[in-house]
């Protein structure tokens, strides 16, 4: 089978994207000072990427697992999406 990128994997899913509110926000100062940037390597959705040494992040595509919240309570402020928004699993 063709090897999939994480973007292709996320494209199988159904989402209702919340254009008005982010459910995950980062403390950019802490992120800039962070050495290991583990968020990049724990997110199953690959939403944390490195661009010129800085964290690039968008919560659209989030699978709402909460792993980033658990590994980085310092810089990551995490809520579930507002009611009716976010991922909608059709299989689960």
């Amino acid at each position, binding site marked *: 089978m063709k090897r999939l990128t994480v973007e292709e994997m996320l494209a199988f899913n159904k989402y209702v994207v919340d254009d008005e509110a982010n459910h995950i926000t980062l403390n950019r100062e802490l992120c800039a000072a962070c050495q290991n940037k583990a968020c990049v390597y724990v997110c*199953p959705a690959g939403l944390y990427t490195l661009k010129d040494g800085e964290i690039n992040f968008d919560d659209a595509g989030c*699978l709402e*697992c909460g792993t980033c919240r658990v590994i980085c309570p310092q810089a990551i402020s995490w809520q*579930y999406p507002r*009611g009716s928004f976010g991922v909608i699993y059709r299989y689960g």
Partner: protein
Amino acid sequence: MAEDKFTAIVVGAGPAGSTAAYLLAREGLDVLLIEKGDTPGSKNMFGGRMYSYALNRIMPDFWEEAPLERPVAREIITLMDDEKSVSVTYRDENWLHPPYHSWVLLRADFDAWLASKAEEAGALLACNILVDDVVWDGDRIVGIQAGDDQLLADVVICADGANSLLTEKAGLRNRLLPHQVATGFKQVIELPPETINQRFQLNGSEGVAQLFAGSCTRGMQGGGFLYTNKNSISLGLVIKSSDLQHNQYYPAELLEDFKAHPTIAPLVADGREAEYSAHLVPEAGLEMAPRLFGSGILAAGDAAGLVINLGYLVRGMDLAIASGEAAARTVIQARTNNDFSAEGLSIYQQFLQETAVLTAMETYRQAPRFLDNRRLYEVYPALATGLLSRMFTVDETSPVHLMTKALNELKKNEMGLTRLIGDAWKGGRSL
């Protein structure tokens, strides 16, 4: 205000919450079941299998109407390195007759169905509502806050899953720590039922549950899983979150590597990926369990950390359902006594014992500690595949006896017999 007060507000329409709501509604109590998803189940995922006994106790013969995929007929445990794999297979015909031992299922359908049973029994189901916080009156919890709305109840049941924000806000537990949870992620891959039956040697509607350990997690604590649905395969990995944190692998790439492994590739070939999902798994057992109750509040299911992972067997949904039952019995008792204080709700412990939830958690208390051993994910899979390779490979070199092969393989993996026996002893006593 009084007329708007519920006996119980259940937060989360998963297996624990819907079971509790169903049983409470059946007793004629006013129950509000709140779900943040568009429909119950739409935010939920798991590996793939539910042990039947817990639901069968509450809804006898549930399989006659529940949306289920396949009853498990075969268990397979596979140890693997990048080129080799060793499997143990167990098949049991008894599991294909009532009370079917376990079922592969998909949560979107199943959870929606279970919540509909609660609704039919008289529970009020409210979807698309995110509960932000609990409402306090002094030191007791008297309801929930969702946006601008405050809803009051004698008791709140937190059944909001592994990543439960509510149990934290209610002061039942501290933040989850990375070593207490694992991250599970999977793809659902569609295939025709006949193809699935041929590839997995299955008859008719029966299914298989397969767990993997070894190179699929690159030495990190965890493993792979595969469950056969009717028209698809659930294939995924579960890896301790602290291990993901301290390594530099990408979960999605690990899953694609796993899919491409020579043992897996022919099983999923020509399939069509239909979904990619992820979820936390509370894996630290009783060590991470929150306080299970407080004044005006109970925690059930994943939110209460009720998961048992033995490496060769994983239990979550059965404990969720059984704890939902225990929570309902607690509320019914508390209402009879008109005492929803922490003391009044403390009988929850006893009901959790009676439904064998806490006794099981207690039996396997040491399992998380035993499983926190890198040898299980690196050395032993390599030992097993290496030994079998020595057994089955014939070449021009002078052969040696089996015992020598085994000792050579141990030496190659820098393993002493004492350590092997020590691990076996600990495993035997904790799993």
